[in-house]
């Protein structure tokens, strides 16, 4: 492998990895950094299972090259919980049975957090459109939307 050295911050920690120039950030995160919570469902940016934040921006990591992440801050599902407790979104996904097989869950959580970071009180429609880039085949999205609504409420309470 002819690789390029990439310096990043992942979930707050300094991380360095080497990857070929044609490798996706998704593969780098999974195969080189060991963050297999980032899932591959399609590899073409259609399913959102590989959603991460790159410098605060929600992206599909399968559409970004590993080398492009040099100097960037990356956020994945593994960084959602703090050492004390789960993030309210994680809590409410469990409480609302908002996952069945769970393969899409990491992407949904990252996308939902990106929404709630910007919009503290989204309407049902805003939630549905914000999550329209994430495919779930098990739930029909019903319990996912309810979980995000409940988490938004929890977060608003926390702030007060």
């Amino acid at each position, binding site marked *: 492998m002819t690789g390029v050295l990439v310096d990043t911050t992942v979930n707050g920690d300094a991380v360095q990895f080497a990857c070929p120039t044609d490798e996706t950030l998704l593969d780098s995160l999974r195969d080189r950094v060991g963050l297999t919570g980032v899932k591959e469902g399609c590899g073409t940016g*259609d399913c959102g299972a590989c959603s991460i934040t790159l410098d605060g921006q929600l992206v599909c990591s399968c559409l970004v090259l590993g080398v492009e992440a040099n100097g960037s801050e990356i956020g994945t599902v593994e960084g959602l919980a703090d050492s004390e407790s789960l993030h309210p979104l994680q809590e409410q996904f469990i409480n*609302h049975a908002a996952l069945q097989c769970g393969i899409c869950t990491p992407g949904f959580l990252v996308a939902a957090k990106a929404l709630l970071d910007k919009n503290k009180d989204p309407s049902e429609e805003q939630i549905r459109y914000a999550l329209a880039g994430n495919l779930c085949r098990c739930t029909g999205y019903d319990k996912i939307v309810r979980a995000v609504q409940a988490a938004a409420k929890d977060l608003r309470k926390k702030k007060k």
Partner: protein
Amino acid sequence: MTHDQSFTNQKFKVVGTRVNRPDGVDKVTGRAKYGADATAPGQLVGLFLRSPHAHARIKKIDTSKAEKLKGVKAVITSADLPDHTNGALLDKLTNCMARDRVLYDGHAVAAVAAIDRQTAKKALKLIKVSYEVLPHVTDVDEAMKPGAPIVQPGTKTRGVDPKPTKDSNVAGVSTFGHGDLDAGFKEADVIIEKSYKTEQTHQGYIEPHACLASVGPDGSGELWVTTQGHYTYRTDCAALLGMDLAKLKVTSSEIGGGFGGKTHVWIEPIALALSRKANRPVKAVMTREEVFKASGPTCSTSMDIKIGVKKDGTITAGSAHIRYQDGAFPFIWGQLGAMTAFACYDLKNVQAVGYDVLVNRPKVAAYRAPSAPMAAFGVESTMDLLAEAIGMDPVELRIKNAAKEGTKASYGPTYGPIGIGPTLEAAKNHPHMKTKLKKNQGRGMACGFWFNFGGQTCTDINIGSDGTVNLSLGTVDVGGSRASMSLICAEELGIPYEQVKANVADTSSLGHNDTTEGSRGTFSSGMATIFAAREAIEELKNRAAQMWDIPVEEIEWIDGEARAVGQQHDNLPPLTLKEIAAKAAGTGGPIAGHNEVVADGAGVSFASHICDVEVDPETGGTKVVRYTVIQDAGKAIHPDYVEGQFQGGAAQGIGWALNEEYIYGEDGTLQNAGFLDYRIPVCSDLPFIDTQILEIPNPNHPYGIRGVGETSIVPPLAAIGNAVSNAAGVRMTHVPMSPPRILKAIEDAGA
């Protein structure tokens, strides 16, 4: 020990509650390990070379250049695999790796294992395959015409008299039914005859097929894999490769959706073969394009439905001819469809004929209540046409003709207690039915039927010295079943839910379990868990007897503790499970319960769906504005996950009804092998999906459980078709009812 599986109207303490699932934290933190998430020291990357043709003879495969590439550790073609000519496994193996001919676009012809993905990709490019392209056929009706290219030479139609002598793409014809059709149609006041088509769809699980295979030179191997049936994968892989069952350990990873698509082997035997040849672990993961092209979608169909009815709504006769394309390998999908077509109704004169037809498309696999949704689309659409023709409410027409206990089912046997009547009554009385519709909106309903299975099942309960309980299951957990099984285990033992930890055992830790299909997980593993817990309780009582030094007959197990019965034992305080477990070392060692069962008698399942849609007359686009699922669950162990099955099946049905379809080009290649062009419903496409769980106990399960996983996908195609018809005034006979098809129907109706 044999156990009585009859329903006993037990009062529940924890069953039926909405507890948090035991694998929840792992799944929301990214820790849960799926098919592609495992690694092994020295692992190689396995990739497949696939046919670009729909049908071709393989003249030659030259792998020499690929083999010489640095970093390539193994290359495999069919020549490297055991020869199963004339064996029962030939079709399975030939689908995993083509032999003399490729039968569909995406059919595997070679595979490589290399030190990394880049090298493996290079190696694929160095493999030279010379093809002689053959004529192909991908449409089910075209494939049945005389002169159509023959997909599998040697195929003679089964089920027709006299036995045919000529090859045909029709692998089988199966007829179900009873009575006298002609006499029945003569009695009818109105007869509706209509033809319908449904396109091919894919289960669309978000996790592609993935495995990590490792075989050593001693013939022992391990397979980590995403599957609905790790025991079945073991059986198939071992048989295909000539391995001993006991020496192949298959571990079911967390499974990222299956819906029937992960009931068959695809890349797994080849990954094992690569590993055996390279003597290194091999990880193989399908791309999404490979999943669409080379796993097992469901059938496309074409059908003719004819139903006759009297003015009072009595159906006098029903007939269905349904042609299912099975892909390139024959199966009984047409038979299954014919069995289900009229199963909701009590008909004196009925006949359903199913055709199993071969085409140059991927081998069809099960997809949630396989074959039933298409037949229901034809029959339930025709039911609405009949209701309209005689001026009767469509729900009333269905209620009037609904099957009930004692009805002779259209597929033969007589029904026991069933839930079709109650789901229809619930639909009739549901508040959804009374809401007002707006402009361009329409309401439709439909009902659906599916079989449930039981099958071979085996469960272990091991009680730790601290009184916590390990529950080992052999059915995989696709949608929360570890939570349901833990509830059942806690219920029986009389302990808190949190005291039980359920896990899915690998094939070397537990006896054979049939694949988790046919809505059987909760029914059968639930039954085995109940019986295993009852065995553990007998042992707990034995241990308490020793601790107290009294005869075991004088001990009862109540609310999680042993109680000595009778006045002479008034001085003995109860012994809890924890107290007994703590003393296990001195009373006979570990305490366990175990059960093997062939859980037959799963019964049948019914659902009724109501939906409102809005059709845009300008674009032909359809929006589902309200959707209600009513289904009989027998007993909902964990209502959240029962609702989840109802909602998920409805959502898949909505996608099938409105958007999803395999589109083949003139050249027989798949044009839309990706989620961009094969569009499944997204969050903004759907409303909340209302559910109503009915609980009509299954007489053949101690808790009354019925399978709930599949039936929810049966009614949506027809429910939406009926709603679209009421909204736009056009009867849609071709699924999916995509905007261009609806627009054309509106234009044709106006012209």
